[in-house]
């Protein structure tokens, strides 16, 4: 139920009232319109984690790489 999937922001449509701001997000090429009201600083090109039609977190690329680098370092 807490399933959330990462997608890439392709375009943002800012609304006058930010609770209605939306983005077009690509999930491996499949486009969906989702709310970005909870991640107001999100930018085109960033990856966001989307749950029930709303982005809940901007994915930190650097952290994603650090975690993977850490795997490799640990296991050398």
């Amino acid at each position: 139920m807490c399933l959330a999937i990462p997608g890439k922001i392709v375009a943002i449509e800012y609304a006058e009232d930010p609770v209605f701001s939306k983005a077009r997000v690509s999930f491996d090429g499949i486009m969906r319109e989702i709310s970005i009201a909870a991640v107001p600083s999100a930018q085109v090109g960033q990856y966001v984690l989307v749950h029930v039609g709303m982005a809940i977190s901007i994915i930190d690329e650097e952290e994603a790489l650090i975690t993977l680098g850490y795997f490799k370092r640990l296991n050398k």
Partner: protein
Amino acid sequence: MKHLEEYRNADIAARYLDDIHKVVTRPWSIMEICGGQTHSLVRNGIIELLPQSINMVHGPGCPVCVTPVAIIDKAIHLSRMSRVVLCSFGDMLRVPGTRESLLSAKAAGADVRLVYSPLDVVQLAKKSPGSKFVFLAAGFETTAPANALALIQAEKLGLDNFYVLSAQVLVPPAMELLLSDADTQVDGFLAAGHVCAITGYMAYLPLARQHQVPIVITGFEVLDLLLGILHCVRQLEHGEAEVANQYARVVKPNGNSQAREWMARVFEVSDREWRGIGTIPQSGLEPSIKYRRFDANFAFAMANVPAETSHSCIAGQILKGMKKPGDCASFRKECTPLHPLGAPMVSSEGACAAYFNYAKISS
């Protein structure tokens, strides 16, 4: 996501497993709270690859599974009213109520619709002012912000035909209950990554300290889970009890403050019954007084039907990690995903369904 494949890399997973095998010297019970993680652990066969001395205990982290029969019965009652459209997520429609599920009510003519997002229900309500739309809102802290946003949008749009029937629950009170329950033997926790994306993890610091358990915030991919287990076992072996964040690419220490602000604005914390477990104090969310006109419990006359759960279902013990699905006499017999007796067999994140679909050895 660019790096998603790497989080499923079999070579790295094998090395990780090796690390876990090297670190473990004693038996440990580790509970993953989140049903999504249970599903991933079972589907990817991780449980069978772990050292035998690590017992993965499956927690209550499936909001669909813990939704009480009484709320399903209420939703069915509402769905039969004229001009009412009852909307919810797919899994919720299949949860057995006392006599039937929302899906069977739909087959019998009730207007029940499956939706992907509560925000879609707001749009439906806007387009059809002649109908009343009730959203059966299940979910943990991960989902509550979207439910809150739907109410805020409905208010701003001036809708008077959008309502919420809340089945929302909070994770930390359930963890507290499990930790205080003498029947539940859990040495360490994997905390639910997407719940923490909203809440952050400061709330877990006192839990870890007070109960002396390590709590590792973990993601859902194979490597996330293995790394979470490794961090947890390392702490256990060293006698540590810290909160660690394995899922830093998604979870910030303070979570998502905008989302929490909406939750605080729209909902208030209440006592809540968890199916199979009982009432957990201060573990639910209901619309606050200011948003009460959107609360289906107040907007509609509700018949008080006494609710009943199947007697043979041991969902409560499964949800508390005391039993595994294979321990239930009905598992794979009278109870299957097509004919579920209890909610853990309905939701794909319920432990019973996960074992039914994927596990080879569990029965």
